């Protein structure tokens, strides 16, 4: 039997054991339980995956119980494994397991060891619920749950002020997104009378008019939610700050899994989204813009984790671009390869940070490759993959997106150009990272240098496994034009996603041409990075002085935080300080209340006069009420 519930049950059990008993049974207990819970979930996922492939219609459904059934509607709590959730299952539990193992080494010295693993298990649980749910109900539970865990883990070092601020920021920006999801869910419920994905997908075309206002509004709300969770413009600013959490958390939550939940949702409802060309276009535009913006910021950051964070935002933009042009398969394929190489890069950077005693500034690194050979080699693999060097995994998935952006009827040359430029930038900033960290002259201070050492095997083995996946993972989806292997991804997802009407399939020559161009660009960017960063930093300083303005724009993240601050936060502050200062108490809720709160308060102050504490006025009001009622019923 399928026993889908076992998959989330293992991490939940792990959470309960670690959370309640971890403190008493000690470190060894936690060290065994936490990764084992995810490991078992992975094994069960594998079993389910193959069962799902063998099943009719490639779908397994397991109804746990009826949540509520009253009057006109019934909502079941049910898990389902299909092509999409099956793939996500493997990514979440597989990559999750590796990161759990890695965390044993990375977090070994931390005081809140058991707390960390309890939350990590809990996160896996909610993420699994998110992808396994067959309706908006469970998806939303998971959606909120992963948000909560992400919030808790970003604030793991809560005694650090910046960490506390970062988790607040993540919390607030995600609430904006949640508002979108909730509104959309309500609209969907009103329209379809159900929350079940399969029914919504199946009936979308009959219930909703293609290109109509309703479907556009619903999908736009959903997409708003997706931008919050998956860190797209305008809600992306929380993700770079989220790097305040421990590095494995960044790898798991903020690179491989949670941030792809927005993509999951769009892909899950592909049949709904294709009915709204405006939304699709919007998704593509936002995705492309985010990809470019984030990549341009990543060019100048010096904090190793921030480079990777902006790179993540940029890659997520890529994936949204793919979804927006109707290339769902390509987008999800990139989710997979990105999970491999970005988790690898984050864990590698964690290994570096671990060795450097929590130094994250790349300007204080350099020449580390001798000291950290495994980390260096694996990170190099990851970099080659993300830069799109041929036959590494990123090459296949990225190229598929580039080609679709160019050839799809929803795409166009503009999209291709942005994605193309972004690809060049990606290659540049990633090799810059490699050169600054591992090559050139050592800028490590002498005290740290004495203690430099390669990380223990418990950390390097996951790196090696992820490196292997990053190198070979791409062969699951070789583009048709190369044709030395069947395109596994397309076969796998056959008939699952909504089809965008094909116009003329682009010529093979054009595809090959574009592919060569992007490879060339990647190599050129690589050599530029090599030129500026591989030895000394003099050349780059000169360049920086020449391009002052641009450099500053990028370094300061295009001043987006400042812009938000100036346009939204500060006017709000001024308004509340000067306009409402004397009228309203100075606490947060009162600021939010503004109008309805004031009206209510006005009424309230009137009512308060009656509540004067004197018993006899209460008796008076009682009697007046009684007289009114008697008069009313008698007359």
């Amino acid at each position: 039997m399928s026993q889908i519930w076992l998959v989330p049950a293992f991490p939940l059990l792990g959470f309960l054991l670690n959370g309640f008993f971890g403190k008493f049974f000690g470190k060894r207990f936690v060290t065994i339980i936490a990764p084992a819970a995810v490991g078992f979930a992975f094994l069960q996922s594998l079993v389910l995956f193959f069962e799902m492939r063998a099943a009719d219609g490639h779908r397994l459904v397991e109804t746990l119980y009826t949540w509520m059934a009253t009057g006109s509607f019934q909502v079941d709590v049910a898990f389902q494994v299909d092509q999409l959730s099956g793939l996500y299952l493997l990514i979440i539990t597989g990559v999750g397991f590796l990161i759990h193992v890695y965390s044993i080494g990375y977090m070994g010295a931390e005081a809140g060891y058991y707390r960390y693993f309890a939350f990590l298990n809990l996160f896996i649980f909610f993420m699994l619920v998110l992808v396994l749910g067959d309706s908006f109900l469970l998806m939303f539970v998971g959606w909120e749950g992963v948000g909560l865990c992400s919030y808790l883990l970003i604030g793991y070092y809560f005694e650090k002020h910046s960490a506390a601020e970062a988790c607040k920021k993540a919390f607030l920006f995600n609430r904006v997104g949640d508002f979108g999801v909730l509104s959309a869910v309500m609209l969907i419920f009103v329209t379809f009378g159900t929350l079940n994905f399969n029914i919504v997908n199946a009936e979308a075309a009959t219930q909703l008019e293609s290109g109509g206002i309703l479907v556009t509004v619903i999908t736009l709300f959903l997409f708003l939610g997706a931008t919050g969770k998956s860190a797209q413009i305008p809600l992306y600013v929380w993700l770079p700050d989220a790097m305040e959490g421990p590095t494995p958390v960044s790898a798991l939550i903020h690179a491989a899994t949670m941030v792809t939940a927005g993509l999951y949702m769009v892909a899950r409802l592909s049949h709904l989204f294709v009915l709204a060309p405006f939304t699709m276009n919007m998704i593509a535009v936002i995705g492309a813009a985010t990809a470019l913006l984030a990549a341009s910021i990543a060019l100048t950051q010096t904090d190793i984790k921030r480079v990777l964070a902006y790179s993540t935002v940029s890659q997520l933009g890529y994936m949204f671009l793919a979804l927006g042009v109707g290339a769902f398969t390509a987008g999800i394929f990139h989710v997979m390869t990105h999970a491999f190489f970005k988790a690898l890069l984050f864990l590698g950077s964690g290994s570096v940070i671990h060795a450097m005693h929590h130094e994250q500034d790349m300007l204080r690194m350099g020449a580390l490759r001798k000291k950290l050979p495994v980390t260096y080699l694996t990170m190099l693999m990851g970099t080659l993959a993300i830069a799109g060097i041929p036959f590494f995994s990123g090459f296949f998935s990225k190229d598929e997106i580039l080609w679709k952006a160019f050839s799809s009827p929803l795409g166009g040359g503009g999209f291709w150009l942005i994605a193309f430029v972004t690809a060049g930038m990606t290659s540049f900033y990633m090799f810059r990272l490699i050169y600054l960290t591992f090559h050139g002259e050592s800028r490590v201070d002498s005290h740290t240098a004495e203690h430099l050492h390669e990380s223990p095997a418990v950390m390097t083995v996951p790196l090696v496994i992820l490196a292997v996946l990053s190198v070979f993972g791409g062969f699951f989806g070789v583009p048709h034009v190369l044709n030395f292997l069947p395109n596994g991804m397309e076969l796998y997802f056959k008939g699952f996603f909504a089809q965008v009407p094909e116009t003329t399939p682009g010529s093979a020559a054009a595809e090959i041409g574009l592919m060569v161009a992007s490879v060339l660009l990647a190599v050129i960017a690589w050599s530029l990075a090599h030129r500026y960063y591989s030895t000394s930093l003099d050349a780059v300083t000169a360049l920086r002085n020449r391009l002052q303005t641009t450099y500053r724009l990028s370094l300061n993240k295009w001043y987006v935080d400042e812009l938000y601050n100036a346009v939204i936060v500060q006017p709000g502050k001024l308004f509340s300080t000067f306009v409402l200062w004397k009228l309203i108490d100075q606490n947060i809720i009162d600021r939010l209340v503004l109008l309805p709160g004031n009206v209510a308060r006005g009424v309230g102050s009137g009512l308060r006069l009656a509540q004067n504490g004197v018993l006899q006025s209460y008796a008076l009001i009682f009697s007046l009420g009684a007289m009114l009622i008697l008069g009313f019923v008698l007359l």
Partner: protein
Amino acid sequence: MAFVTTTDLIPLIPELILLGAAFVVLLLDLFAPGSQRTTLAVTTIVGFVIALVAEIQLLDSGATGFYGTIVADGFSILFESLYLVIGILTVLLSLHYLDDHGIGFGEYYVLLITAVVGMMFMTSSLELLVIFIGLEIMSISSYILVGIRRRVPESNEAALKYLLLGAFSTGFLLYGISLLYGATGSIRIPEIVVALQEPGALNNPLAIIGVALIIIAMGFKVAVVPFHMWTPDVYSGAPTPVTAFLSAAAKAAGFAMFVRVLLTGIPLEAELWKDLFWAIAVLTMTVGNVMALMQNSVKRMLAYSSVAHAGYIMVAVVVGTPAALSSVIFYSCAYAVMGTGAFGILTVRHFGKTPDSYDDLAGYARYKPCLAFLMSVFMLSLIGLPLTGGFIGKLQIFQAALEEGWVWLTVIGLLNSALSVYYYLRVVVCLYMREGSVPDGAVLEVAESPGFALTGLVGAASVVVYLGVFPQTLLELAASSVSTLF
């Protein structure tokens, strides 16, 4: 010929068990020295638990006694079990509170038990005399409970206000009963119903005034506007565990009586009564929420919000269909648990004092993370967010209202719900976003929260979440118990 046989006592078994427990506690208090407070509490809990078991045994027995005066139908068993559960929670929340505030009276537990017994009589009887006596047993016990901190002026004042206004409303209730008795010649609900269903019976002014007076008195018990004025004062002056008990159990008992006497007994389908209830529901929701918004004391805010919640239940009363009545039951249960939990958090000392204002809640996230989390669960449920019992309850009520076409009522209810978000979230904000400063000279109690209270609070929170995640069990119970009423 015996007028009363032992089989008559079957539906009363839980009540008898509780009375026995009350005697045991009284005797224990006499002979056990003052240090053995835990014994009393545990004995009380054991009494409640045994009664609860007996209650469950009675389910489906259909037992009646005393010529049909006392019944053990699904409706009464469900509500009585609720009182018992709230009773257990209250005892759990009381132990440390009594110690902290030097309330060393064993009578406290006895009165708690007798109050519950009174409620059970109110709920299981079909005769107005017995209902009245049950009501008075409950009321008199709770007057004393409210004033049990007899050296504290606020507690005295609350007790006095509760007593005088309570007795005042009793006068109205009795007057109503006497007029109804005059109009129908009976004080037994089934007979009254038969008499009132005769054509022209409702044109009799005696009957109309009688019913109206009963509505007024019951409106006082469940605290609907304009008969709610006592609620905030009494709730804020009473010892906090007693407040929790009153807001949960006493209010549920009031609604049980409301449903039993007015909604299923007396024909109220006429537009006249609907309009009356409509106005009361709207007023109650709005006044409760608006006033709650104005408060700076969390306890008083919760008191006003309990008025607002009575308003939501009144919405279902207006609708009056079986589906709506079963939502009354569900909401009463859900509110009882989440309200008790919310008040319960306020019984635990923080920075050396019992929290009262919003500012007192600052720093919980840091020093008492467990309590902060539990309180957030209760607040989210009171708001009515998904996956909590409060959500299902509101969903049920407003769905029932919409199905019957009460659109405006639903809109007003939802607007009120939105208004309540402000003050409930303010609590969560204080818990999590504000740093608490330890007042000078206060002892920072790093020690764990009192075990009994924590058990109770975790239990309450689990129930709140359970009702949100697995609501179907209680929904079905509520629906089937409503069907036993007709």
